């Protein structure tokens, strides 16, 4: 059965996993993972939630529990986990010591493990998307060149994009350096110190790294962009700085997994892929409403079966524009706002704004930003006689206590009315003024 531990054990060359303080070889991690299984027989066939601590522990736990537990939930901070799932804590383990090297024979039957990744939902409750090791590693490539890379991890590793970087580095035998915390300059300091040669980041983060003027000090051979719409100016800037490097942008989602990789240096993807996609992990189709539909070739996860149509195509709710040669992404049809790779559901922000007693209606929508892709802005109507300045202060206070920073509207406009659709829903496409 394919699982992370067996795949890593079969590799001829393996790398190291490091953060700013510590470094461990994958061989050491494998040994610790085996010890962890041995110390925790009670977790076999159980569903467990893994809170994120640091990259070395995270990878060790993934290696240990894939094939050991029936399900692993990769938890962002403060996430609510389903009721029948055990929350993993290193203090709970029984039996052998976590770090003790395993000796002697240790036979056991492995199981098929479901991997669950959290994506934020419209109400603020997380939505758990089911994957498997096989479906998550479908896009992983191995070669001598890839084995020599040193990956800088800039995404959070418990998110889909971050996990892809982790798996790519581990399974190709490359080095992995965690630089996912801190502001761009702090990240860059870590990357510079460790001679990183491959980075995957959102377009917003690439822009910020360019703004430091230090990005050129790295010797990058492999640049990957994902999580947001990629524009041509950014691709050209990166190509100019690293003319010899491989520059790719990836289309993927937490729900459906890897879609496809574009490596011709152009924004969007070739139109011919709508007809010829045998080389891609997905089939592609554009619906009459201009939504991109994808049909993954791998993955039978329950989550996907629930959202696929009769032919197995999933509506990505990404709106596209089809030209003679190219298909370009326009934005999310659902109104979901993408702030530097972070999803913001307008409904959630509107519900928070409406808690203010002076507010009649609220409409939250995206404003284009060259730096962050999109920003959150809001229109509100207020009850008569309300002092506009006080209302804005009150709204800000409520938002700061209940929303994440990137969810707080960067601008709140007080308007006379908010246009609704015939269904009574707020029309987010018609913007005031």
């Amino acid at each position, binding site marked *: 059965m394919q699982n992370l531990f067996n795949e890593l054990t079969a590799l001829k060359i393996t790398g190291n996993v490091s953060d700013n303080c510590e470094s461990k070889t994958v061989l050491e991690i494998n040994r610790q993972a085996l010890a962890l299984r041995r110390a925790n027989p009670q977790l076999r066939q159980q569903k467990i939630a893994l809170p994120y601590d640091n990259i070395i522990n995270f990878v060790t736990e993934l290696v240990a529990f894939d094939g050991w537990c029936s399900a692993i939930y990769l938890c962002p901070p403060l996430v609510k986990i389903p009721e029948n799932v055990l929350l993993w804590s290193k203090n709970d383990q029984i039996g052998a010591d976590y770090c003790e090297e395993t000796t002697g024979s240790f036979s056991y039957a492995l199981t098929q493990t479901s991997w669950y990744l959290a994506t934020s939902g419209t109400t603020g409750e997380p939505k758990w998307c089911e994957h498997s090791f096989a479906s998550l590693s479908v896009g992983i490539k191995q070669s001598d060149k890839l084995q020599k890379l040193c990956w800088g991890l800039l995404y959070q590793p418990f998110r889909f994009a971050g996990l892809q970087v982790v798996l790519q580095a581990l399974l190709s035998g490359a080095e992995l350096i965690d630089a996912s915390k801190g502001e761009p*300059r702090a990240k860059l300091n870590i990357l510079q110190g460790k001679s990183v040669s491959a980075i995957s980041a959102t377009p917003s983060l690439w*822009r910020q790294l360019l703004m430091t003027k230090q990005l050129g000090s790295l010797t990058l051979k492999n640049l990957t962009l994902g999580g947001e719409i990629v524009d041509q100016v950014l691709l050209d800037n990166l190509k100019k700085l690293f003319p010899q490097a491989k520059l790719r942008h990836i289309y993927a989602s937490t729900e459906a997994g890897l879609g496809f990789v574009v490596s011709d240096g152009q924004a969007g993807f070739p139109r011919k892929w709508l007809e010829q996609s045998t080389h891609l992990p997905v089939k592609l189709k554009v619906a009459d409403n201009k939504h991109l539909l994808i049909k993954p070739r791998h993955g039978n996860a329950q989550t996907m079966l629930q959202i696929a149509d009769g032919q197995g195509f999933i509506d990505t709710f990404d709106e596209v524009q089809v030209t003679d040669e190219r298909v370009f992404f326009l934005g999310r049809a659902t109104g979901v706002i993408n702030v530097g790779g972070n999803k913001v559901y307008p409904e959630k922000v509107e519900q928070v704004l409406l808690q203010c007693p002076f507010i009649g209606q609220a409409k939250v929508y995206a404003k284009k930003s*060259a730096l962050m892709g999109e920003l959150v802005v809001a229109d509100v109507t207020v009850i008569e006689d309300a002092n506009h300045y006080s209302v804005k202060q009150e709204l800000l206070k409520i938002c700061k206590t209940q929303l994440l920073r990137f969810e707080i509207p960067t601008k709140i406009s007080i308007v006379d009315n908010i246009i609704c659709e015939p269904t009574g829903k707020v029309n987010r496409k018609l913007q005031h003024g």
Partner: protein
Amino acid sequence: MQQVAELNDCQLIEPIEADTLLLECGLDSLSYAMLVAQLEEDLGFDPFTDLVIDTYPSSFAEFLAIYQLCADKQ
């Protein structure tokens, strides 16, 4: 900048000179995006959208120069 800093609970450094690096002024990347949005409200243009920027500004002087260039073209 002060207004955006307060909104984001950030502390601006003093003094901000022409060669002060933007990412060392005390504002983070989201705050800069907010500053650009706020300046668009006040000035009526966003140079990062209106111009094809071939290099991203690094220092405070470069940031101002991009706005000056865009204002001259208006």
